[in-house]
């Protein structure tokens, strides 16, 4: 795997509608690079969410369907079952995946559907103007938690990786960040791995990307990056929550013994 400096083939050479300092664009690029390096652009089908990334197909150059809010994992299930030879992925925000679409993601993961989910967690609803997300931090102020998120009224942030890691079927679950170049390199490896496992027909793969929403957080892009590292990563620790491939390698090489 190489780090691509040139423009990925799977990414249109256009500027995006995302705000400055938004993590969506970086995540798109990492997906495009992974598809390029695996050589699967021509057999990939993307499922766009409802959220700021609803226009994902304007940037990632693959066959794409736009799902209803939260339903991407169900739509992807239908696609992948009909086209097992295609590489299918959903791209979802935290409102899409961890609020309205909680049932769909849990059950697709639990069936071990052979697609990849890239879950962009920015702790807020970006598209609708900054309302509380299920991943909004305690005391974080949003349009709908103007005094800060209070556990007594809104509960606590939902941890998608930890929740999905309670299931037996998922093959690979990792949480990464795109806040610094080093973290982006790590994120790139994770996204590549997730797609590679899909190419190898291993099972359901899931990468959560801790991201930013400077616009609705009311911060400058650098401050937003800093806040995501200092505050979000405390609640959403980065790391691998499941990697059946690595476990398999360990047992095969005897590293476990």
């Amino acid at each position: 795997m190489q780090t691509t400096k040139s423009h990925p083939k799977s990414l249109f050479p256009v500027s995006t509608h995302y705000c400055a300092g938004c993590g969506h664009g970086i995540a798109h690029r990492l997906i495009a690079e992974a598809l390029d390096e695996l050589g699967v652009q021509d057999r990939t089908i993307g499922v766009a969410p409802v959220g700021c990334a609803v226009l994902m197909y304007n940037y990632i150059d693959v066959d794409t369907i736009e799902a209803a809010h939260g339903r991407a994992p169900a739509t992807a299930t239908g696609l992948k079952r009909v086209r097992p030879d295609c590489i299918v992925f959903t791209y979802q925000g935290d409102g899409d995946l961890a609020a309205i679409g909680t049932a769909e993601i849990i059950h697709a993961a639990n069936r071990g559907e052979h697609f990849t989910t890239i879950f962009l967690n920015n702790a807020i609803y970006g598209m609708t103007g900054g309302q509380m997300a299920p991943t909004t931090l305690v005391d974080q102020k949003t349009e709908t938690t103007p005094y800060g998120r209070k556990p007594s009224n809104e509960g606590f942030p939902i941890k998608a990786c930890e929740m999905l890691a309670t299931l037996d079927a998922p093959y690979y679950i990792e949480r990464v960040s795109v806040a610094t170049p080093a973290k982006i390199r790590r994120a790139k490896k994770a996204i590549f791995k997730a797609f590679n496992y899909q190419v190898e027909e291993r099972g359901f793969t899931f990468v959560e990307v801790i991201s930013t929403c400077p616009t609705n957080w009311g911060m400058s892009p650098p401050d937003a990056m800093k806040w995501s590292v200092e505050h979000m990563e405390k609640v959403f620790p980065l790391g691998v929550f499941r990697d059946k491939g690595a476990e398999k390698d360990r047992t095969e090489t005897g590293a476990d013994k």
Partner: protein
Amino acid sequence: MKQLMTGNDAMAEAAIQAGCRYYFGYPITPQNEFTAYMARRMPQVGGVFIQSESEIAAINMVMGAAAAGGRAMTSSSSPGISLKQEGISYIAGDQLPAVILNVMRGGPGLGNIAPAQGDYFQATRGGGHGDYRCIVLAPSTVQEGTELIQDAFDLADKYRNPVLILSDGRMGQMMEPVEFKPRPKAEMPPKDYILTGKKGRERRIIRSLYLKEPELEAWNKIIQEKLMKIEENEVRYETRMVEDADLVLIGYGTCARNSKEAMRTLREKGRKVGVFRPITLWPFPYTALSEVVKKARAALVVEMSAGQMVEDVYLAVKDTRPIFFYGRMGGQVPSATEIVQKAEKIFTEKL
């Protein structure tokens, strides 16, 4: 060769024979036999069966499967069909084919598991948000159910539009002799919209989002023009003894069966009664119905609802003839005897 089967089993077998290879559903009475049949049969024919986590998930799986070019369907009963409305609106907005079977039960709310026809408005007026229509087919026998579900797949593919089939708890559970006749393969338009990966062609997008108003209006016009073609070409109905009828009984599904039985009794008594049975509830046979009723003196609409299809009958007949209504609710079925009584009352008091 005829075999005795329940409506649910027979229609499931017919769907398989129509080439349906992707079924997604969530349990609900009185359609469970349909889902169970699919669970048994799909693995035998190399198809996919998924018991989904909800009706919402099931319809979105259908949407994904259709987008990938599979012949896909889901089935449910009234409360579950309510949950599918979001997905049906997206399927219509995406112009994708899909077949949805509603084995209707009593409502509103949880209602009960007895046969009903309270979902007519939901089925024929859209049900979900936005300007669209589903093609709605209403069989009245198990045999016809098997034929219509096969037609449903062809219609869905031909027009790239969701097709609803309205059965009910009685038709789903009742046993009748059926024969699966081999069907000539219908000529279908090429599926030049499906997602397979862009190898060797322009990449494709399936969406209903058009942020610019003129674009969305243009997309809506394409859908509306298609719907007008369906209205021109796909209207279906059946008539019985309407030529000399004074009173026309109008009913679909189970109510048409009982209306026919009532008609026979009334004819024996010398009453000139005919039956008009819409087979497509959308497109509704307005013109044909209006012509039939104009030749008679009055119409009696029979429904298992508080009166839903009767509004379409009004739209067809307007005030050219008096329209009477007899409906039962709560899972009660208007019996032939009740229809006869109601008709007799009309003959003696109103005509």
